[in-house]
């Protein structure tokens, strides 16, 4: 992969977004206008199936837009391959009245499957947890004098031992009524507009 090191968003991240948005758009079309799809493919009566495919497209499309698009991309690629299989079944019928439309649809779904597979693979590679050898951090205790010595050290020294919980009821320091407005040591007036 040719990466632009000055930015974190790379080509395949943008491709994932494009696939996601396109998937949502086409999915919604299938959900809302299934008859138009079945008519163009010559499979009238299969509207429920088209709606199901549309819903699948919306779900995987939304997934492709999340911070971890990999599962959705693989699912979408699998869905595209299923669609291809269904379309090829239609194409096998030499008397099918809309063979031209089916061929066009196969081309589009095939292109989508190829792009999605490429993107899923690239994303999986780029965002993979390293696996393999686990770095050895067993020496990183953070306690120069050892864990045994550290255990309870702060409590023993008393320094920071629950001196002040983040609760007004146990707050340290002098309190001043909030309504009081008076000059402070820095010359600003409490409660006034600070010019930020």
């Amino acid at each position, binding site marked *: 992969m040719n990466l632009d090191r000055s930015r974190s968003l790379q080509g395949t991240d943008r491709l994932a977004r494009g696939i996601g948005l396109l998937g949502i758009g086409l999915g919604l079309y299938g959900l809302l206008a299934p008859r138009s799809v079945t008519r163009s493919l010559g499979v009238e009566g299969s509207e429920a199936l088209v709606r199901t495919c549309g819903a699948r497209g919306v779900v995987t499309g939304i997934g492709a837009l999340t911070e971890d698009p990999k599962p959705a991309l693989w699912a979408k690629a699998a869905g595209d391959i299923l669609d291809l299989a269904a379309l090829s079944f239609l194409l096998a019928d030499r008397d099918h009245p809309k063979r031209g439309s089916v061929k066009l649809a196969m081309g589009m779904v095939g292109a989508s499957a190829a792009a999605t597979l490429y993107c899923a693979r690239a994303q999986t590679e780029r965002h993979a947890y390293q696996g393999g050898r686990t770095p050895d951090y067993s020496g990183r205790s953070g306690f*120069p*004098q050892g*864990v045994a010595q550290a*255990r309870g050290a702060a409590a023993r020294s008393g320094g920071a031992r*629950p001196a002040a919980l983040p609760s007004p009821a146990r*707050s340290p*320091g002098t309190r001043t009524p909030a309504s009081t407005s008076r000059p402070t040591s820095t010359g600003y007036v409490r409660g006034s507009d600070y010019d*930020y």
Partner: protein
Amino acid sequence: MKALCWHGKNDIRYETVPDPQIEHSRDAIVNVSSCAICGSDLHLYHHFIPGMESGDVVGHEFMGEVMEVGSDTRDLKVGDRVVVPFTITCGECDQCRRGNYSVCERSNRNKALADKVFGHGGAGLFGYSHLTGGYAGGQAEYVRVPFADQTHIKVPDSLTDEQVLFLGDIFPTGWQAAVACEIEPTDTVAIWGAGPVGQFCVRSAVLLGAEQVVVIDNVPERLAMAEAGGAITINFDEESVLGRLQELTHGKGPEKCIDAVGLESHVPRSIDSVYDRVKQAMMLESDRAHVLREMIYVCRPAGILSIPGVYGGLIDKVPMGPLMNKGLTVRTGQTHVKRWTDDLLRLIDEGQIDPSFVVTHTAGLEQGPDMYNTFRNKQDGCVKVVLKP
């Protein structure tokens, strides 16, 4: 100057931006020597935090040398070496006087907006959306620090950047989470998440004298690091969290539970996680609450739940019945950094703890975009990234 800028989901860029200027007499400009990528920066990276604008400079863990000051920065002088807390504090408002620095009433210059979203907004934060003031962040060569007379921690030259840098966020965050647990010598403290904050929760709980500290995660090297710090580890890919916690506590459950994960919990095999992912993808909830649910379930009655992990908005299916009937106490919030840093700096100076243990990757600022990816994917054993502008 050069800086890392946010441009949308997964899109951080290394860019040239205008140099910061002194805008107020209490401002200072800091020449950044080291900055870090925080786990909560990943919430911005994944665009879970609202209020970001394209081009915003990110980063809220940074330190460096003061190179310019306004006319009213009191004892802060040019040349001082400082760590900058991620919460900007005026030091004068009612909350600052109470020590509740993370809810400073004056430092968020977009407070009206934050008040609309949260009811009452918190302090201004560096590089963390316009809801928290829209201040430029610290993953940059230079940073303007507002209220600089208050918003700084002076550090001695005898300590390295890596030893003190985390005083600005993750060390006091882990510490506050542990202090909020009111740890007793007989306590078991269970910590979800072995990321950088989780690691400091472990060290803090050990320093505060917990009998047992248990860490739950599934990343082997992070668990190994937690174990090195004195924790018993549970890999949730390999064993039952509930079963192991029951075994470790003789069936009573841990007295104290800490959520060091926050809104992006990753537990692929749990039903509620799948449910959360679907709802989040459909924008029907913003945060994934698996860890919260598990904590409420396993915690010993009358125990304490401490939540340093960042949540941004709405969660679903919170078991409020068990929470109430078990009499659990919930403590959470952004960190009141300045409340803890004197003590923590002393612990570092005395050699009780060396926070540099957590640094696994050091790189130039120009490698920042790549490092976001490495950190996010936990590649190459990445636990904590320090960038050198």
